[in-house]
């Protein structure tokens, strides 16, 4: 029987990618929701602002995991390097999944922390919602950068290396 080693590396790469990325995104989004609940308890009148900020922050924390999902779908169904039968090409497919998975643990957790503290701040001082949301966006964008680096390395491993 002809063994397709591509299946081995692509299944493992996709699993590691999405599995590891979900750790950070899940933890971060849960933290945002927890802080938003806490802030609503203190400041029920600001609930609309809080709900909106919570959803924005969760979407920001989710982006890394969506990058990982994209890479996993590319690996599984994108016909990338499917005919590969040398070790470097096969390993690069696995490494692309791994880099995206590990790369998103930190950004998901970090952006979640930023979003949680933004909700906490809005609960404490609802009049400054705009200022706090702006700081949330700037902070989250900088924290996102390492996920973008991981995406770049993942795409390079898939298409160039």
């Amino acid at each position, binding site marked *: 029987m002809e063994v397709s080693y591509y299946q081995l590396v692509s299944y493992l790469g996709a699993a590691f990618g999405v599995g590891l990325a979900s750790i950070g995104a899940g933890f971060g989004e849960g933290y945002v929701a927890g802080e938003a609940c806490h802030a609503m308890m203190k400041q029920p009148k600001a609930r609309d602002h809080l709900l909106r900020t919570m959803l924005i922050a969760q979407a920001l924390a989710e982006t890394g995991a969506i990058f990982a999902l994209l890479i996993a779908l590319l690996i599984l169904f994108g016909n990338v390097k499917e005919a590969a039968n040398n070790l470097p090409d096969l390993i690069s497919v696995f490494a692309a999944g*791994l880099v995206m998975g590990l790369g998103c643990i930190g950004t998901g957790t970090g952006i979640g*922390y930023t979003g949680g503290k933004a909700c906490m701040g809005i609960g404490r001082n609802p009049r*400054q919602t705009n200022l706090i949301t702006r700081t949330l966006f700037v*902070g989250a964008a*900088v924290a996102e950068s*390492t996920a973008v680096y991981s995406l770049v390395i993942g795409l390079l491993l898939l298409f160039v290396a």
Partner: protein
Amino acid sequence: MEITGVEIIRAAALLGAGICMGFGAIGPGIGEGFVGGKACEGIARAPENSGLLTRTMLVGQAVSESTGIYSLVIALLLIFAV
């Protein structure tokens, strides 16, 4: 599938690039998020200092980013130079 020594080295470099950038992104991501969170908290407490807080946040995040950029450089070196 025949595997030669050169291919093993090349495969190790590619796997190393993935591991390097992956692990290298964990720390800066958490650290920068922590900075951003504390800046939001600080602005809620003292909105009149928002300019100072935003500036300090960006400087701190830039320093925290440096290890992520080291990882990126090493990963690119492993992919293209090794």
